[in-house]
């Protein structure tokens, strides 16, 4: 029941937001997002007080009703550790994303915020669906609001970029739909239900096809190279809130789905194709990091760094051992927090200087020490310094990769060097040195800007110093997924 409340609240708020005009809309959206976060946090205490193992962890939050009788499609939503974590991530970031738009002039803001809340609804739906078709519906639904957000509130290149992004990801989704049809067809239970699909697996001869249909869909969403070319331009052109939604939450749909809808469902094919998949992921880490080094556009640099980071997450998932899965999950949370922080910093810089070109910036720290400090802390989280949230995830992911293959871990580990190279280079050009334009006085952050940045920085340390609750939360289900690898 609680899952349903969490899911429906943003939908209803989204509709109500449309009724407001002017600044009321944003306050209402914020209120809605915060209430949802509070409910989510309360749900955590229900969670930790319930001692359930493996797949049964969903039992407490299940809402399962028949929807279509033939083919059997149920409105089956629930939460286990992984789902809860992703719901938490979504609901944690949403207030920050909404708040980050408070200082900006946004045209037709009631529609804008309504779309953001609708997006929240769709994203939550993806994370809590336990029926394949329901999951697919939410997956596609999530594309609609972000399409309009990018198309209407983006920069001058928005139209062509958005259409490319939309068609590219839609093409991937179609493959996934086809994959679900195959699953239904080949599965002895003729069901879309996750519990059935994980219990009774498709014959290994059919798994290969399904694997590729799903894999390409997810690889586009995550993105894993070579399916990534839509991403840098989209991140650059979309409005900041759109980029935050995309990079902070939406790409986690892909990595989440790898764990939920790929590994336990077609384990044999995954085992067969892991060498290729993991090679793509690891190559992507180095490839994207190397490209990021010479980027001059701040948003594009962050986009490539994001490709590198999620490449590591995906690699850890494919390594398919418990630390890889746990690491990927804790890293999804960390990456979500850090990446919206980084894009918010880019947004603040752009709004004050009208420039994203890092060669034309500099000396921000002279006049905006607070902003420079927050920015640095977020960067440190992003380059995984111990005691920041990025570290535990990266440690577990690389160790997961190490258990799979030593050389891949070393190669993927280059990210800790390359990450420092491009991030510190960027920080130096943007924030340090002397200001290139002597008249430019970069105003320090205050008000809502500071609230957002401060919250993000606190979260960075909180999850870095206390990683245990998150790891414990996802442990049973990570164990369940890993057991599938052993049984394969």
């Amino acid at each position, binding site marked *: 029941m609680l899952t349903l409340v969490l899911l429906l609240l943003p939908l209803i708020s989204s509709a109500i937001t449309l009724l407001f005009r002017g600044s009321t809309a944003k306050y209402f959206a914020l209120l809605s997002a915060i209430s949802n976060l509070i409910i989510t946090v309360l749900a955590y205490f229900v969670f930790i007080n319930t001692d359930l193992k493996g797949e049964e962890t969903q039992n407490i939050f299940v809402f399962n009703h028949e929807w279509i009788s033939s083919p059997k499609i149920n409105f089956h939503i629930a939460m286990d550790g992984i789902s809860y974590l992703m719901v938490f991530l979504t609901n944690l970031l949403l207030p920050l994303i909404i708040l980050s738009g408070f200082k900006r002039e946004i045209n037709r803001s009631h529609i804008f915020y309504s779309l953001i809340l609708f997006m929240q609804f769709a994203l939550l739906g993806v994370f809590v669906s336990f029926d394949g078709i329901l999951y697919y519906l939410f997956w596609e639904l999530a594309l609609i609001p972000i399409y309009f957000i990018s198309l209407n509130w983006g920069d001058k290149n928005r139209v062509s970029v958005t259409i490319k992004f939309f068609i590219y990801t839609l093409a991937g989704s179609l493959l996934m739909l086809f994959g679900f049809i195959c699953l239904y067809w080949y599965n002895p239970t003729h069901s879309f239900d996750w519990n059935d699909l994980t219990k009774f697996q498709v014959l290994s001869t059919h798994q290969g096809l399904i694997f590729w249909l799903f894999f390409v869909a997810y690889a586009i969403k995550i993105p894993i190279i070579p399916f990534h*070319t839509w991403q840098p331009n989209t991140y650059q052109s979309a409005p900041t809130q759109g980029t935050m939604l995309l990079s902070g939450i939406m790409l986690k749909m892909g990595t989440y789905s790898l764990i939920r809808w790929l590994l336990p469902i077609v384990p044999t094919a995954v085992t067969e194709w892991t060498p290729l998949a993991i090679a793509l992921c690891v190559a992507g880490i180095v490839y994207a990091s190397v490209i990021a*080094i010479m980027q001059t556009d701040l948003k594009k640099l962050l986009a490539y760094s994001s490709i590198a980071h999620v490449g590591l997450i995906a690699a850890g998932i494919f390594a398919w051992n418990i630390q890889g899965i746990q690491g990927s999950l804790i890293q999804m949370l960390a990456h979500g927090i850090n990446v919206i922080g980084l894009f918010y910093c880019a947004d603040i810089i752009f709004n004050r200087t009208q420039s994203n070109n890092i060669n034309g910036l500099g000396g921000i720290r002279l006049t905006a020490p607070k902003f420079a400090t927050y920015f640095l802390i977020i960067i440190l989280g992003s380059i995984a310094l111990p005691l920041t949230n990025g570290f535990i995830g990266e440690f577990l992911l690389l160790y997961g990769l190490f258990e799979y293959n030593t050389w891949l871990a070393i190669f993927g*580990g280059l990210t800790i060097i390359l990450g420092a190279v491009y991030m510190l280079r960027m920080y130096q050009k943007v924030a340090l*040195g002397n200001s290139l334009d002597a008249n430019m006085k970069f105003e320090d952050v205050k008000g809502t800007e500071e609230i957002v940045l401060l919250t993000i920085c606190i979260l960075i340390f909180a999850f870095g110093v206390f990683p245990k609750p998150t790891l414990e939360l996802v442990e049973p289900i990570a164990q369940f997924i890993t057991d599938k690898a052993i049984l394969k």
Partner: protein
Amino acid sequence: MNETLTDIFSIPVILIPLLPLLGFFVISLFGKQLKKSSGWLGSFTVIASFLCSLYIFLNLPAESSTTITISNWFYFKDIFIPIAFLIDSLTVTMLLVVTGVGALIHIYSIGYMHHDEGFSRFFSYLNLFIFFMLMLVMGSNYLIMFIGWEGVGLCSYLLIGFWFKNDAYNDAAKKAFIMNRIGDLGFLIGMFILLFHFGSLEYQNVFEKASLLGSGNFTLFAATLCLFIGAIGKSAQIPLYTWLPDAMAGPTPVSALIHAATMVTAGVYMIARSNILFALAPLTSTIILCVGIATAFFAAIIGLKQNDIKKVLAYSTVSQLGYMFAAIGVGAYKAAIFHVVTHAFFKALLFLGSGSVIHAMSGEQDIRKMGGLKKSLPITHFTFLIGTLAISGVPFFAGFFSKDEILASIYANQSLLLFTVLTITTVISAVYMFRLYFLTFLGDFRGTEDQKKHLHKSPATITVPLIILAILATLGGFLGMPEIFHAKHFLGDYLSSSITNNSANYASHYFEYGLILISIVVITIVIFSTYRFYVSKKNLPESDEIELNIFSKLVSNKFYVDEIYDKIFVRPLMLLSNLFLVLVDKLFIDLIVNLTGFLTVSSARVLRLIQSGNTGFYLFTMVICMVVLLLFQIFSII
């Protein structure tokens, strides 16, 4: 281990890192309100930590150790990573050095940084550094050490680039961080190997399980080699040493604290801590020995031709670290730690002395433009002289005993060749140090009139730490005297419980006597010849102004190592970055993507023509298709 010990020590042990951390928080949050008192607050926290360390030193018996667990940081599978501190004689030795020298440098900084606008920020960073350094030496497992390991790297980055308006300084900071990170990857992989084979990162568990493996085991070789790569980065050895001379961009107290006395010796500490592992990996030890000696020699040669007072000291630090690694390479871990301790005294002293000189010279760092400072800076001069004597290995000063112990153990364990190289290095060290001393303090003043007018004595916050360090640099050697003096090797005995695998052989007494005799003779020759060369002639020797031959040009330009790295690593990486972006990303992958889209649209453009609205054509197509389907059915039945 021992319940009662844990009870007694848990509070002071927790306080040791906690106080500087608190200091960091308070100073960074209330720096504006605290103004100049943040300096005293920052110093106070470190002094308090020092007192706690002293309390533990006095009360914890040398042969016992205790582990204090604060909390369980995280776990996965059955691997637990607690936040826990291991307190044994090695930790206590490092604690005393870090907090002791750290406190002195904090106090010194109050005077040195007095006019800086970033005064509070400076002390918050220094406190944070001390916190991470303490985590590094106190952790009871490799991951806690790694927190400190990366944390000190961060502080080093922040402090090298402390004056962030200057982009050259920022470059130096970035370079330091990145080169350290290269080492950190090695450290990380080393941890993975240990974790994979021993299922734990706790020192105790790892060492227990490792000692079951035989000497020369491949796992241990790989793990120790990776850990050593970490040490190469942090302790500035060949090939990752180039960041340390650049790191002199930071304020001088930082150079003294981080880049001489404490952080750069972290690699030595780490290996000494893991002595059980390294003792079982003879191949790694040989590599360490070679790297150490090569670094010691190479850096000393470069040091001969440097004219920046801090650069000379920086190369000397690299060289001295090379000595420590050489000692480790022959299994003389205790000698290495002994040298860490004495080096911390005399090198901190020299750096702080140079800071005092730079302060007095209004920022001038070129020793060719100094000279004759003896009169205007008597305390600095006297203490600097002691530092010079100590580092050159003049008998009975601190450096003499530790250096001789290293030389003796190398002689006793390895070939005569390596011993000779290291001995020559000692002579070179004495030469560049006395060159530095003579050019700076003796002879005539070569600076501008303006500077001469401004020459002033330093305040007490600067001179008192100098004097204390000078005393330590003089007497520090008596912590570990060789057997021939019939004295106890205090430090060696004290460390026995934590360094159990000190496999080095000891040299014979005759050899010791010989070494001392030779030292005295050689040092005397060096002092006289450098004096004649740099002081008696009054004018600067020509060789310091112009390059006489190719070799001296090579040395002045530090063998072009930075330029070579730039050519073979940095430039290609930038090229590769552009290549990936333009050729692979835009021209290849994205082209395929766009081509797919384009083909879809163009095929639609063609196929669209079929929908002409001509009903007859539609019917015709329908019939054709039905026929084809029918034929297909018939043939498939057959």
